[in-house]
């Protein structure tokens, strides 16, 4: 998968400019940067929700001209539908994406089983019949991850998905995402402002500059996988985070 942006601007404000980013198929990329650097614009560009004013975006070799139809997305808010059970929330993409959409009614039971398997993977065994308001914030966010993955998207876009959670739940969900990625092998672009999160999860961390946003540095994280949470306390890891932090400080000036 190749993503190349040359520039984009919204209503008079240039959100991102001269932004070049390549993400290999199956890679885990993280994008970090100061607040307001156009990270969310990047998300919308990559999924085709917003068209660039200049430049091109390609996913899987094909130019992005409209919404890409194969992306899974999760945001800081879980955005679950309160009138649907957890299972039905996870199934929502299948009611929209072809070819599942056509088969959905007929194969409802198969799809439900698939949703339950995915929920079990993130530790939500037995919660399928519950409603979102009965779950904690962390559990809602796990559901949101499942919803983003149920249709086996080629590209998973995460926009600060763990930012609203407490520190322990956040680390727990890092592991959930790490395991899901290791198991299923999708391409991830994780937008975050948490450097430890980026360093722990990603293959490559891209640092964005303040508005207009562009990639000012890319750093490969060569820590061995699978990574355990304890790695966060290794000197090597701390060095990486420190290095990333100083680069962000540079671009903030």
């Amino acid at each position: 998968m190749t993503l190349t942006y040359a520039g984009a601007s919204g209503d008079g404000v240039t959100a991102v400019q001269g932004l070049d980013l390549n993400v290999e198929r199956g890679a885990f990329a993280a994008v970090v940067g100061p607040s307001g650097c156009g990270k969310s614009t990047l998300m919308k560009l990559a999924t085709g929700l917003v068209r660039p004013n200049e430049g091109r975006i390609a996913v899987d070799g094909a130019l992005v001209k409209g919404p890409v139809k194969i992306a899974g997305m999760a945001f800081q808010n879980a955005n679950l539908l309160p009138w649907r059970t957890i299972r039905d929330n996870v199934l929502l993409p299948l009611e929209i994406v072809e070819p599942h959409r056509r088969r959905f009614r007929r194969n409802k039971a198969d799809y439900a089983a698939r949703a339950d398997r995915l929920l079990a993977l993130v530790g939500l065994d037995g919660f399928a019949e519950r409603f979102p308001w009965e779950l904690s914030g962390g559990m809602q966010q796990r559901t949101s991850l499942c919803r983003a993955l149920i249709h086996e998207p080629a590209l998973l876009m995460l926009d600060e998905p763990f930012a609203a959670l407490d520190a322990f739940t956040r680390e727990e969900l890092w592991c959930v995402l790490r395991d899901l990625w290791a198991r299923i092998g999708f391409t991830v672009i994780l937008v975050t402002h948490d450097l430890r999160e980026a360093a722990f999860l990603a293959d490559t961390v891209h640092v964005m500059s303040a508005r207009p946003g562009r990639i000012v540095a890319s750093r490969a994280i060569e820590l061995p996988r699978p990574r355990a949470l304890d790695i966060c306390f290794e000197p090597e890891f701390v060095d990486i985070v420190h290095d990333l932090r100083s680069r962000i400080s540079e671009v903030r000036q």
Partner: protein
Amino acid sequence: MMPASLMERAAPVAFTLGLGILWEAICWLFNIDPIILPAPSAIAESAVTHWKPLLRHSGATMWTTLAGFAIAVAFGVVLGMVIGWSRAIYRGLYPVMVGFNSIPKVAVVPILVIWFGIGEIPAILTAFLISFFPIVVNVATGLATTEPELEDVLRALGARKLDIILKVGIPRAQPYFFGSLKVAITLAFVGSVVSETIAANAGIGYLMSVAGTNFQMPLVFAGLIALAIEGIAMYALFAFIEMRTTRWAFRSSFAAGT
């Protein structure tokens, strides 16, 4: 000492009874002329004597109200969806709607009478005109306030506008819609009774205006009470439907958050 829950449940009945007793006592103590304010006992007596016309006219009012209300629901849902669908339509129609809604509907009744004559049609139309507005506004609000991020999630899956409306907009608008029905039905009552009072030959409004010109004040008040009972019954019915259809909105923080 009664348990708190029992007290809470008994409270509405106790207050209604207390109000009636207070009213009776004031009429009796100050020797108020029944032409000015009849006592509840006199009203009850009149209601028993005239139960047949009261029931017939209540039925007529109920019919015009429900007919107007039904039209308001159908029209309100369609218009609300159209308005909620597109920002341009929303912007274009909203001032017109607000302007229309600020006209006192009683001013429209004479026009309706000229168009349709005296009878139930002006009453039905007044009930409709007065009650569709809250439905439109609520349906449109429910649709228009879909979280943009959720819309992004669906659009990134290739969802069309219609998909988003069907999967998210309409379920999301439901609590707003059912909430507006309670308001709309009480307004529809106001509309039909206003119209009946001005120009009709049936309905509680008509009965009250005839009884008023004959100085049968207890009967006028009996009509009022009948209206109150019908209004409460309809409100309770739609409040119940609201609870049953959109339980999720009462349980989650959804309703509080918006």
